[in-house]
């Protein structure tokens, strides 16, 4: 290299007065220093320097060679290490001076590039042969020696591998373990004593199968399986960021997911509706509700933020989430620049981004059954009363004047600082819609919904413009309270957060360095180049609906593989591909590639039925294995890649709560509906900024205190502590794999949280209520918590424990059995076995 530099220098010096020779001087330099990343094999940042046309066209940020203008040519700025740009080649401060000088002269001399110049030797077309990008074919189940173990083809694939390794599968788990496992995996609830006894008495060889089929039709199936999907959807009940306002109707989307799973909506339809339900022909309200998936992005209402920035961030997030949840690709990595070994390039990222570039957020009426009739019957009366109130407080004329001033302020910023603030608040604090957009529509052209949104904003925020004194005179605060009260008195329709496609042609651009303000080349909506392309009508800009259909098309090798893999991980504790969200070239290879493809192909052949997929897995011998450790395999297969046993899995946060409430008999098993706020310690909300704005935690009353964990209101800035302690996602970005940590805070939570202590009391009550006999009571408590009967040794231990507790309590003057039973129950609710799916 040094020699070349010297040569270049010499030739540069010798030819000082003459023209630079491209073929002899420039091309060898580019070849030596640039082609590695900007040549035939790689075109980092979209730049290719070995072909004349491509080189002169430039990269993502535009032309890099401006003939005659070296001072403006990015190529020269980079290789001379100019300030403010990253020097090239990477890791250097630029090319040696003589080489840079040569290129500079060449550019200033007009960047002459003879057509005859030889470029780099062409490389064989590097069609990506990565396993995850190959078409899915359904492999035949392999032959195995011990065919008695094979209950369905899954077992053949698992056993073939085990036999190859000379390992026997683990024995089947005992019946009650299996029963509790199936209950927790299919419904997220432990079996009741009655269900346990029924199963024990059922001598039918297909008894387990019958249980599985019963559980698959349970309405709690949808609740259990909604959760991993909601993790991917980054579901939450609040905006996130500073103000973190509650989203009172986020649950409407959650409801949709639960219903869809309970009805076994085919996963392809499930996907299309969430990504583009609004674009379906004759889209129904439910189709639109599904697009709530795209609304689970965060909303930044902080004063002074640039809305364009967060609109961009949300589009990036939607793009990355598509990658994680369906494609198993970490495409978010390509937001800022190309990565040398990643086949998904920055351009690919922005081509996917372009599908979401026209997404507009819109809230709609999405009535639940039974709401519409009462609403319509009272609608006119409600509207008349509302209008009368607005008139009473002279809202009309004051709002008209305010609107005029606001538009004037927007046109002349910096003149009246109080009104500037009022304008910013319109952009950030309008509830349920885009304040600026509505304000700019002529009043007579606004829809009723738009009118209400703007009027409500005006009434609540007029003080920013006129100050507290004038505002007090308007009595708008009082009016606001009366309007809210009126609204509460009349039946209203449930709302849903959905999306729409903005009107008009969109143009989408790559963003240089991922910065929303720096536009690069224009891009068209398109799927990544390494994947089979999509069918689109020639000459038309492909839509989000085209994308959604492509995502679940037979030709897309990823969606089906990714989906069966995460379902597998839910049931086995580890994916066939370990990284559930990364099927890219650097990800771990599948442990059982043929099994993965078999499941993926069958999933599609079965009409994308989630229930059939799950049923097949749960009925397999592989699933039914014992989860006990196999010390003889510990060293050889510490991660259980061979699937030579089941895995003990600590339950996710929500299911720990559900199990405790279920065991205690306190649980409310209502399915669906609004989020609830169970008791939480004082001070939790105060750690968030939103508390200054009145975010609060109005504790749910009655049975709602005991709803399943899935329904707990998730406040992003100050989430419910128990959920945080047990690794529920933070809901900022899609999460495909939860952590299963094991901490002292979890221990404190289960030991001392009043919610769990109440559960212990409930369990004590249930046990004592079941029988007058001590042994029978203990058995009841065991069945309710661990789904099994106590062993003799355990019984003896508890007898001693109970006696000691009684003694202690007696010293405190408490001679009843209740407290001792509560303590005993609490021990059961804290056991590792209780919070684990064996």
């Amino acid at each position, binding site marked *: 290299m040094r020699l070349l530099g010297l040569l270049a220098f010499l030739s540069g010096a010798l030819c000082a007065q003459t023209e630079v020779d491209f073929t002899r001087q420039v091309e060898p330099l580019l070849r030596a220093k640039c082609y590695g990343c900007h040549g035939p094999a790689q075109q980092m940042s979209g730049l290719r320097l070995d072909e004349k046309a491509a080189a002169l066209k430039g990269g993502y940020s535009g032309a890099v060679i401006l003939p005659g203008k070296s001072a403006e040519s990015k190529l020269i700025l980079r290789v001379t290490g100019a300030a403010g740009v990253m020097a090239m080649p990477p890791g250097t401060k630029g090319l040696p001076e003589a080489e840079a000088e040569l290129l500079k002269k060449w550019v200033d001399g007009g960047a002459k590039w003879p057509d005859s110049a030889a470029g780099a030797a062409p490389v064989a077309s590097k069609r990506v042969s990565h396993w995850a990008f190959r078409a899915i074919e359904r492999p035949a189940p392999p032959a195995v020696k011990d065919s008695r173990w094979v209950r369905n083809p899954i077992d053949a694939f698992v056993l073939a591998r085990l036999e190859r390794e000379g390992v026997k599968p683990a024995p089947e788990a005992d019946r009650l373990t299996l029963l509790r496992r199936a209950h927790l995996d299919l419904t997220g609830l432990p079996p009741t004593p009655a269900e346990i006894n029924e199963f024990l008495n059922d001598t039918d060889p297909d008894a387990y199968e019958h249980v599985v089929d019963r559980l698959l039709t349970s309405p709690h199936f949808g609740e259990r399986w909604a959760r991993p999907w909601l993790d991917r959807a980054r579901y939450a009940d609040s905006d996130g960021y500073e103000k973190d306002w509650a989203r009172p109707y986020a649950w409407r989307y959650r409801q949709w997911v639960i219903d869809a799973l309970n009805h076994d909506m085919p996963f392809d339809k499930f996907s299309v509706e969430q990504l583009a339900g609004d674009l379906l022909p004759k889209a129904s309200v439910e189709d639109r509700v599904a697009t709530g998936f795209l609304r689970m992005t965060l909303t930044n209402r902080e004063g002074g933020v640039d809305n364009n920035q967060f609109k961009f961030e949300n589009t990036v997030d939607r793009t990355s989430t598509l990658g994680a949840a369906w494609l198993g690709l*970490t495409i978010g990595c390509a937001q800022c620049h190309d990565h040398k070994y990643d086949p998904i390039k920055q351009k690919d990222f922005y081509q996917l981004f372009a599908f979401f570039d026209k997404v507009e957020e819109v809230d709609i009426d999405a009535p639940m059954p039974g709401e519409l009739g009462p609403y319509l019957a009272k609608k006119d009366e409600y509207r008349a009363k509302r209008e009368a109130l607005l008139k009473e407080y002279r809202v009309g004329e004051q709002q008209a004047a305010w609107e005029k001033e606001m538009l004037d302020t927007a046109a002349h910023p910096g003149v009246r600082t109080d009104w500037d603030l009022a304008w910013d608040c319109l952009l950030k604090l309008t509830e349920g819609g885009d304040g600026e957009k509505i304000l700019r529509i002529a009043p007579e052209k606004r829809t009723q919904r738009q009118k209400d949104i703007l009027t409500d904003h005006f009434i609540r925020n007029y003080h920013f413009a006129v100050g507290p004194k004038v505002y007090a005179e308007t009595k708008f605060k009082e009016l606001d309270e009366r309007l809210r009260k009126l609204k509460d008195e009349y039946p209203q329709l449930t709302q849903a957060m959905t999306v729409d496609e903005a009107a008009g042609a969109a143009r989408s651009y790559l963003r240089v360095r991922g910065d929303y303000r720096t536009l690069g080349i224009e891009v068209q909506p398109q799927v990544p180049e390494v994947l089979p392309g999509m069918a689109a009508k020639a000459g038309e800009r492909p839509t989000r609906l085209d994308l959604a259909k492509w995502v679940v098309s037979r030709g897309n090798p990823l969606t089906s593989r990714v989906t069966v893999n995460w379902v597998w991980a839910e049931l086995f504790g580890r994916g066939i591909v370990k990284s559930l969200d990364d099927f890219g070239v650097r*990800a771990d290879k599948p442990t059982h590639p043929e099994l993965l493809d078999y499941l993926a192909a069958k999933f599609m052949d079965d009409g994308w039925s989630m229930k059939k997929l799950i049923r097949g897995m749960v009925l397999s011998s592989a699933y039914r294995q014992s989860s006990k450790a196999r010390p003889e395999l510990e060293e050889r297969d510490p991660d259980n890649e061979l699937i030579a046993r089941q895995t003990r899995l600590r339950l996710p946060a929500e299911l720990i709560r559900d199990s405790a409430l279920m065991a205690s008999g306190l649980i409310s098993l209502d399915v669906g509906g609004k989020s609830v706020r169970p008791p939480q310690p004082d001070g939790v909300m105060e750690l968030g900024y939103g508390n200054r704005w009145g975010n609060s935690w109005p504790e749910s009353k009655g049975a709602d205190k005991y709803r399943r964990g899935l329904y707990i209101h998730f406040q992003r800035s100050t989430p419910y502590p128990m959920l945080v302690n047990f690794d529920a996602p933070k809901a*900022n970005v899609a999460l495909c794999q939860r952590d299963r940590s094991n901490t002292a805070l979890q221990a404190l939570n289960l030991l001392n949280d009043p919610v769990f202590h109440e559960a212990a009391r409930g369990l004590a009550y249930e046990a004592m209520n079941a029988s007058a006999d001590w042994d029978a009571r203990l058995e009841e408590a065991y069945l309710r918590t661990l789904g099994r009967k106590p062993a003799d040794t355990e019984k003896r231990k508890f007898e001693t424990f109970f006696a000691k507790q009684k003694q202690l309590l007696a010293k405190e003057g408490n001679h009843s059995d209740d407290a001792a039973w509560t303590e005993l129950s609490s021990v059961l609710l804290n056991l*590792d076995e209780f919070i684990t799916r064996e």
Partner: protein
Amino acid sequence: MRPEELFAVHNRRMFLRDCASGIGMMALGNLLAGEGRTAEIDDPLAPKKPQFPAKAKNVIFLFMEGAPSQMELFDPKPELSKWNGKALPADLTKDLKLAFIKPTAKVLGPQFPFRKYGQCGMELSELLPHTGSVADDICLVRSMYSEAFNHHPGQLFLFTGSMVGGRPTMGAWVNYGLGSEARNLPGFVVLASGVGTSAGSDNWSSGFLPSTYAGTVLRSKGDPILYLSNPEGVSDASQRLRLDMLKELNQEHLERTGDAEIASRIHSYELAYRMQTSGPELLDFSKEPQETLDMYGVKNEKTKAFGTNCLLARRLVERGVRFVMLLHASWDHHSAIVKGLKQQTGATDQPSAALIKDLKRRGLLDETLVVWGGEFGRTPMSEMRRPDDPDSIGRDHHPNGYAMWMAGGGIKGGQVIGQTDELALSVAEDKVHVHDLQATILHCLGMEHTKLTYRHLGRDFRLTDLGGQVVKKMLV
């Protein structure tokens, strides 16, 4: 390994853990390695050696939420007084991107006089006499700059290195890199005073790191740590019985299943119990001399909240807690800045200085890094939300040049680093980016910031994102 051997390992593991010392955990790693097993350390918070010999062991970050005004506190700007009430020349401000005000807003001259403090003669505001009394111990940086000009993104940027949510915070990274010496307390403790902060729990989140590394809030009312006290009506003796029973049954189940995770569970419960006993001791100030309590202002209404937290911070690092984060909100003086600053300095100046003095006399300052500052600074121009009320004047957010200070482990005190231009618009000398600050903090702790990484979504992430250079001038 036969089952009984496996359990023997578990038992030894238990024994070593119960030694309640970091050395035990290290030894365990070696022991297992000696047996030909991977040195699997179950406790993710076991102390780890830094990458190179460290100056500081622990960090106390005094986070002044909302962005304190550098012109009234740390960065004297006499020239600015001359512009008071006037707009700055347009060519100086045309590229400014501000949150609420326009670049044409009128300048507000500094509202408080400065004077020289300490032997080093550090110029600080008269609002900060106590900080002035430790001027020779602190390194004042007047040339900080950030990329964010809104609170939530700014706080994320300061603590996670990125403006977008979901990444681990500084305290989580430090615990991930070094573990914690504290065996009875969490390794990352958060204390709050004032009102809630913009970024809420995002400021102490573990992001994509295991949640073990997240900050634990030490609460000022109710249980100091959530669920630390026994449920109502449960005595300590009864609680201990409960725990013994749990341990026995969990141990039996461990033997039945052979799942090492149960051993961790047993350990977690024992740690929880130790936290229950050590928690009250931590909060018990009765053995602190009156002079110490007075120094922190624990009994004075104005300084009580922050002073108590500063004293707790010292007690926490004494007990080996790796990263203590104090949040004090809010310094977001868009309005009524004169009144607001008097109030906030009144609450924080004395306790902040007391912390430095107290650490120093106990020989702890050398191994504790103390950082004081906000997420960005404030504009030289004024903000006027209520033109009819002159006292309502304030300043907007300004990320292009602001001040913070550091003291203790690895930091050279009695010096000022960098300066802003005469009009406080931008940094004129020795620019220190937020990523540089982060790199320097990690350096003091014996970690090279580019080497403290975590693989997530196919990429190695780090606190300093793609930037960061250690600021050598700050170091001893």
